């Protein structure tokens, strides 16, 4: 079954090679590209949107736009940031449609107040994910793109349209805000 084979099959071909094959008309190359990027793209969409159904829609739309726009990609070496840029744009567009983003002043990192005490008793992973979902989208996206070593600063800048220094600054602010909220939890666990 094609779907189950996606989980284990690994190709040694580079993105550039697969892209060349895709452009030459090899539909199998599409499957291999999807196989390589399905998890990080879906994870990015899910963590941006916080909803599985919406994340699936955004992931599907990302790969559809990839197919339709493959000829517009000038530099094959820029495929990865380009693909994540599509996913990021899809995620942000869906967030805007949901009117879930706020246009508060630029120094505001959180979308709302999330006292850590409300999360007491839950697993650390759930707490971290819960806090992550409360970060404003522009901070959440850069943190997600960087934390799993998905993209370099330069690639994140290309994917988001920010300057590299703005990317570094946002990642720093996101980490600082996130770490500050988690610090009491970690301290409490150490003290126990």
């Amino acid at each position, binding site marked *: 079954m094609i779907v189950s084979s996606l989980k284990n099959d690994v190709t040694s071909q580079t993105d550039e090679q697969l892209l060349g094959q895709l452009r030459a008309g090899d*539909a199998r190359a599409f499957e291999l590209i*999807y196989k390589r990027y399905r*998890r990080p793209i879906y994870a990015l969409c*899910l963590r941006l949107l916080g909803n599985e159904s919406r994340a699936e829609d955004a992931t599907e739309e990302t790969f559809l736009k990839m197919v339709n726009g493959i000829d517009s990609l000038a530099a094959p070496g820029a495929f990865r940031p380009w693909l994540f840029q599509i996913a990021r744009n899809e995620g942000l567009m869906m967030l805007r449609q949901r009117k879930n983003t706020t246009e508060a002043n630029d120094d505001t990192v959180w979308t709302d107040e999330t006292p850590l005490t409300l999360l007491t008793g839950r697993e650390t992973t759930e707490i971290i994910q819960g806090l992550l979902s409360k970060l404003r989208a522009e901070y959440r996206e850069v943190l997600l793109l960087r934390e799993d070593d998905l993209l370099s600063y330069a690639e994140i800048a290309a994917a988001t349209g920010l300057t590299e220094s703005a990317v570094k600054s946002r990642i*720093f602010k996101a*980490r600082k805000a996130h*770490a500050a909220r988690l610090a009491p939890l970690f301290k409490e666990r150490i003290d126990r």
Partner: protein
Amino acid sequence: MNCAAYQEDISRYLDDDLSDREEQEMFAHLAGCESCRGFVRDVMQLRNALRRIPAPEPSDSLDRRVLSIPEQWAREHHHVLSRTAGFWKQRLAVPMPAAAAVLLAFLLTTVLALSMWFRPVEQTKPEVRYIMGLPEVEVRGIPGLPAKSVQ
């Protein structure tokens, strides 16, 4: 530099973005700053925690939806998808009779052009005519004199 600037460097250090000199300065600052050491501890814990979050697995239904994209694309663009031929080749495909007609027209034009280009040059013969066994030479081109025949 103040602590805020060093903390931004700490964030960059996690991403392996500091030069050797910046790294040395950051560690020198950390040696004497409890607040920044606390920041290092916090962001390291955050990073480790984020990395422990398992990547969500896309559902089978999502896989099916995405893997049907090439077929959808081919259907929408009125092409028959072949996993070996691919769908972009077909996107550029030209109907066979039209292609044959264009090729034939090209070949005919080429042959015609070549035949005209390499047409043998007619050699100019002297204007010599024989009348009753003697050549008649037409002299012409002398300014002021009418053309006449000399036998």
